């Protein structure tokens, strides 16, 4: 499951921010008075999502940002105790009972989404859970339910991609011909449509399409090989090393067998 965000429809009302804060006992912003749209914000340990305003040649574009729920999530791969877990349903969620607080997930996430409670003696990792508990109860995520303009569509990734492609084909001048999250980092649960190039609305376009876990794949695959091969190799060297050598300084003689000490 995933969410399609059509930024051409968003009016910046931030009802999603309010709904998310209320649903999860986090900061509920005062959207009328806090003037938050006048600055660029990022998620924090008190807010799982933010809506930012970007001034572009096609006018103001409002973009909701949160955890992308990647298909090959770097954070879930990084976690030594599976406290960060990519669930079968789609959302990447965090389990406080397992978490060591090592923050390796924060280092690995290409979108810098997990946020840490540095001010707490018992810190949590805070990030969007795609309202996993609501999904289990058969409901939609709180932000999707709260959105008044159908900016957010909750559904399977296949359906969302089809809807997104359909919109691009039907209105080729309205959209940039790219669905952000279709290929990026190997595919993400949240995908985006935009009227302007994505780097103008706060997205990094240099993350590549390679799923991030694959960066550590070769190393981790090599580990059992090393554990098999090296001990035997060292024993072999030990057997060939013969009796203890004095290791004194000798002239380098390329014709002498055995080499130098």
């Amino acid at each position, binding site marked *: 499951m995933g969410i399609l965000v059509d930024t051409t429809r968003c009016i910046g009302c931030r009802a999603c921010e309010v709904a998310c804060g209320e649903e999860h006992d986090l900061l509920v912003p005062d959207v009328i008075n806090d003037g938050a749209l006048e600055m660029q914000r990022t998620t924090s340990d008190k807010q799982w999502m933010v809506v930012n305003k970007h001034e572009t040649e096609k006018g103001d574009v409002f973009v909701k940002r949160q955890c992308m729920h990647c298909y090959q999530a770097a954070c879930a791969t990084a976690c030594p105790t599976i406290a960060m877990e990519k669930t079968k349903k789609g959302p990447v969620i965090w389990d406080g009972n397992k978490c060591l607080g090592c923050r390796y997930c924060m280092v690995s996430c290409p979108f810098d989404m997990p946020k840490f409670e540095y001010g707490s003696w018992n810190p949590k990792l805070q990030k969007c859970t795609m309202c996993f508990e609501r999904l289990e109860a058969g409901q939609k995520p709180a932000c999707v339910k709260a959105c008044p303009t159908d900016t957010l569509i909750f559904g399977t990734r296949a359906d969302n991609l089809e809807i997104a492609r359909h919109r691009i084909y039907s209105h080729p001048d309205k959209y940039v011909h790219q669905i952000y999250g279709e290929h990026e980092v190997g595919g993400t649960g949240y995908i985006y449509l935009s009227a302007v190039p994505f780097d103008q609305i706060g997205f990094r376009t240099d*993350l590549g399409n390679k799923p991030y876990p694959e960066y550590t794949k070769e190393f981790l695959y090599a580990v059992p090989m090393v554990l098999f091969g090296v001990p035997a190799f060292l024993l072999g060297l030990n057997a060939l090393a013969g009796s203890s050598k004095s290791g004194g300084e000798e002239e380098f003689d390329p014709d002498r067998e055995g080499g130098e000490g």
Partner: protein
Amino acid sequence: MNTAVTREMGHFFQFLIQEMKPRGPWLTPFNVISVPVILTGLVVLYFRFVYGLGAVTNLSQDFPWGFWLGFDVVTGIALAGGAYVITFVVYVMKVDKYQSIVRVTVLNALLAYIFYAGALLFDLGRPWHAFNPYIGNSFGFSSVMFLICWHFMLYMVAAFVEFSPVIAEWAHWEKARKILKGLTLGTVIFGITLSILHQSGLGALFLMAKPKIHPLWWSEFIPILFFVSSIYAGLAMIIFEGTISHRVFKNLIDPDSHHAFEDIIFGLAKGAAITMFVYYFMKALLFIHGKQWGFLNDGWGYWYLLEVLGFVLVPGFMFAFGFRNRSLNIVKLASVLALLGIVLNRLNVSFISFRWYAEVHYYPSWQEIVVTLMIIFTEIWIFRWIVTRMPVFKPAH
């Protein structure tokens, strides 16, 4: 049977109490400096555990890993690489010449791993869950961090077993000493294998952070670079610590071995020269492969050149030159420069070039530095206690 065991334990406790008595003056310069630092560090730790990491560190959402992880753990472990190198040379390749420094090097590595893995505990957000990677049913096999947790733990065991004959000798447990001695080769082989994996593993931790680390420091070959540099880091550390130990603990080392020690230093210098030469060319290869000449014309480029030329190429040549001309001073200076180069490299990868594009950069808070010093000073206290009581400077037999 019972009374015999009780009597043995009684003797051992008496022995321990006798050994706990101080062997030197209380007011040495080192003690006077280290004790206040250690006490301050403990106070800082109190605040860290009651008010959270943010109260004592400059860590932030943008910079989740800082000085404790980057220096204490990542750099500290690299500098402890001497043990696997020297045990390889002495026990696997049977080069007796380096016998006399094996014990102290293994002791240093054992203490380093215990203290720096301990330092990791202070950095964890929920250290009471620290055993989770080892127990239970939620093993993150896909995680490099999981691998490192296990390897650190297993290596500590291996290093302890490698050092245990010294403890057995000290406590006069002859039978235990013989058994433990017999385990040496196997443990050494195990330790070398583990070291290869966790030295490179510390580098592998940063592989997924590709978009966040400056291209001059990130490469898919970071694990290999970390492993190769840990070899000469270990050799340089043996030279550095060995030189200091030989002066400070002069009375514990028999005079004959002083000359042999010089031979050892030069032998290590030769090894370091070759390793640094190889490492330098590996960096050059990655530089060419990444077409990185374009990165050289700004501050980061100069910083990179300083690290690679000033703290790798130069000390590498100095090791070779010092060896060839038998100049202890040049070799000692080379080892200091090489060690600084390792520190620089590890810090660059873990937090200096991490998010190099950020507006606000991370730098360690005074509390982070004090706790680091506390850890190092405590380690030296323990080292001194062990070395003045156990036969560490006697050759292994």
